[in-house]
């Protein structure tokens, strides 16, 4: 990445390891406890009329200003499961990093004493995945924020300062994952803020300001676990130091691969990817786009020096054209 793009390492925070999430979707049961816990703790308004979205059990829709955890539900038949398994196998055969030492791939792929026969493909499966802000190493939203409202915390996470943001919306366009959003008015206040007068509700907080997951910054500074991870009954959402989480994730993928479940793969664990790796790492069981995640996100500021250069040439050209116009149009 270029020198312009911000990253957690730019500010040395002694004594604060980078924190993150590891969301293991293979053990998610789709209970949405994370969604509820997030809404309650962060006092986020609900952002729509109650409606059925005709997308399995997902009636939340997508991440947004008022939804900082979103559980995706995907129903797949045997054909899709096999496709997912094949694409995972193709990924393994690429010889990508993290699959044991090079030259030892046979041993890594087939641990002795473990039955590596793929299990019988089921007729049907649910994919459930709790999506969240990725807290990127090179965060597009943070880079393009003109006011400095978005900042990198001492825990390596990316947080909006509600009282600084003026709601320009650049971060919304800057996020390659479609996470951050400007809050319009919610349709209802949350319970804690509600007036006791029947029929009247307190106004929603932070209207007109960009909002997204803070990785529960307020809980973190007190040494607490973020609300979603705390509420998760299956430990599908794990919270901790990013390095540890990534190694946990690698072990888990190796374990699943050893069981023949080649569809398992990691998302965001690679520090060489377009966003420098993400603070929230996911274990997915199909291609990322199936879950609504971009297959090859790239922080827009990675190309910013080049863009400035092109704009500089264009600006100089405009100056030259004007000068030429005055020379050419000199006859009066």
């Amino acid at each position, binding site marked *: 990445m270029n020198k312009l*793009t*911000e990253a957690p390492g730019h500010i040395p925070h002694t004594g604060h390891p980078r924190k993150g999430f590891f969301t293991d979707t293979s053990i998610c049961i789709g209970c949405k406890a994370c969604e509820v816990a997030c809404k309650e703790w962060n006092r986020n308004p609900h952002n729509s009329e109650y409606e059925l*979205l005709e*997308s399995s059990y997902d009636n939340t*829709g*997508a991440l947004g200003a008022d939804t900082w955890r979103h559980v995706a539900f995907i129903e797949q038949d*045997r*054909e899709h499961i096999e496709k997912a398994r094949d694409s995972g196998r193709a*990924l393994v055969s*690429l010889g*990508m*990093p*993290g*699959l044991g030492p090079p030259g030892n791939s046979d041993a890594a792929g087939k641990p002795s004493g473990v039955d590596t026969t793929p299990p019988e493909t089921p007729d049907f499966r649910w994919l459930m995945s709790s999506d969240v802000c990725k807290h990127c190493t090179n965060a597009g939203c943070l880079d*393009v*924020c*003109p*006011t*400095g409202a978005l900042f990198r915390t001492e825990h390596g996470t990316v947080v909006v300062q509600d009282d600084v943001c*003026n*709601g*320009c919306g*650049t971060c919304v*366009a*800057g*996020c390659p994952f*479609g996470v951050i959003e*400007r809050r319009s008015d919610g349709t209802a206040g949350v319970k804690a803020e509600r007036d006791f007068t029947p029929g009247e509700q307190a106004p929603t907080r932070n209207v*007109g300001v960009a909002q997204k997951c803070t990785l529960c910054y307020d809980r973190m500074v007190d040494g607490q676990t973020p609300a979603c991870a705390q509420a998760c009954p299956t430990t599908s959402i794990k919270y901790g130091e990013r390095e540890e989480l990534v190694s946990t994730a690698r072990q888990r993928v190796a374990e699943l691969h050893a069981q023949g479940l080649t569809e398992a793969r*990691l998302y965001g664990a*690679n520090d060489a990817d*377009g*966003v420098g790796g993400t603070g929230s790492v996911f274990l997915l069981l199909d*291609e*990322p*786009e199936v*879950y*609504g995640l*971009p*297959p*090859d*996100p*790239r922080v*827009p500021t990675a*190309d*910013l020096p080049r*863009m*400035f250069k*092109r704009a500089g040439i264009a600006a100089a050209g*405009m100056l030259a*054209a*004007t000068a*030429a*116009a*005055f020379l*050419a*149009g*000199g*006859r*009066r």
Partner: protein
Amino acid sequence: MTVSDFDNYRPPEPPRRSRRGGKRRRVGTGDGSGEMPMVPEPEFASYYGRPVVKPPPWGDPIGAYLFLGGVAGGSALLGLGGQLTGRPVLCRNSRLAALTSVGIGAAALVADLGRPERFLNMLRTIKPTSPMSLGSWILAAFSAGVGISAASEIDRLTGSRLPLGPLRRMLRAVEGPAGVEAALFATPLSAYTAVLLSDTANPTWNAAREDLPFVFVGSASLAAAGLAMITTPVQEAGPARALAVLGVAVDVIAMRVMENRMDPVAAEPLREGAPGRMLTWSQRLAVAGGIGVLAGGRHRPVAAACGLALLTASALTRFGILRAGIRSTEDPRYTIEPQKKRLAARRQAGIVDDSITTAG
């Protein structure tokens, strides 16, 4: 299968495709034994067709600003040219045009904020990674120069009746340098909006990053020149006519080059739907305006008509590109397909270590 009477109301389930050994994947290989799919397989999967990236909350005020910022930048340059080459009417009109357009443009920018009362936070810091931050500073610096030079013109227009007192002499002294200062920031003002749009995860704007600045400066030049041709008598508007023709050439060529160099899928929103029609008409009007200037720019009515055509063309370009980008976020296809393609291309080239998806 079922025991409930209510199941009568269910729509019939599609017949389940049976699994035939390992042959299933060879269906449709041309031997005639396979079933023909009724619908071609989509080239990509998505989550219920929902968008991957979000559109920025930028409405028509931002489109208006893109247009007016360009007009202001070009006008300030024409103003400086008029100032240096002794064309007082062109200088005056361009300065006033620059002030008016930058004023309305800035107001539109503020109006589109989620919290307009916090607009000054834009100048809270200088962030090189944020085109919006740099742009705010460019806009502020530009407005200062334009404000001073135009204030002097207004004073002259009103017959020195502004209650300036001793400040009048100072104003007269700094109006020239102020015009130069404004012109210094005029081209960045015209070009930075392209970077602002391209430095995003928006599929269409980001894919246009190489050539969008050229489209924008071309559009700014032809619009400012068009406005000068409307406001200024033909005797002094010669440079404006020349700039209009140059602007049209740059705008039309850059647009072509941009569309051809972009990922074809990401370029689709520039050609289709309402934004596509706007951009088509903007090109037609620009060409018509350019030809009109060449043919009859020395006749005032023709010049004014051409100026109007050019202004409209520029506005259509800006609104078209803004809306095409917003449209490109509505369909996940524009995000996913180019990304999958570039990922596959890198893998083809042997680069396999930079994917966000890893096997371990």
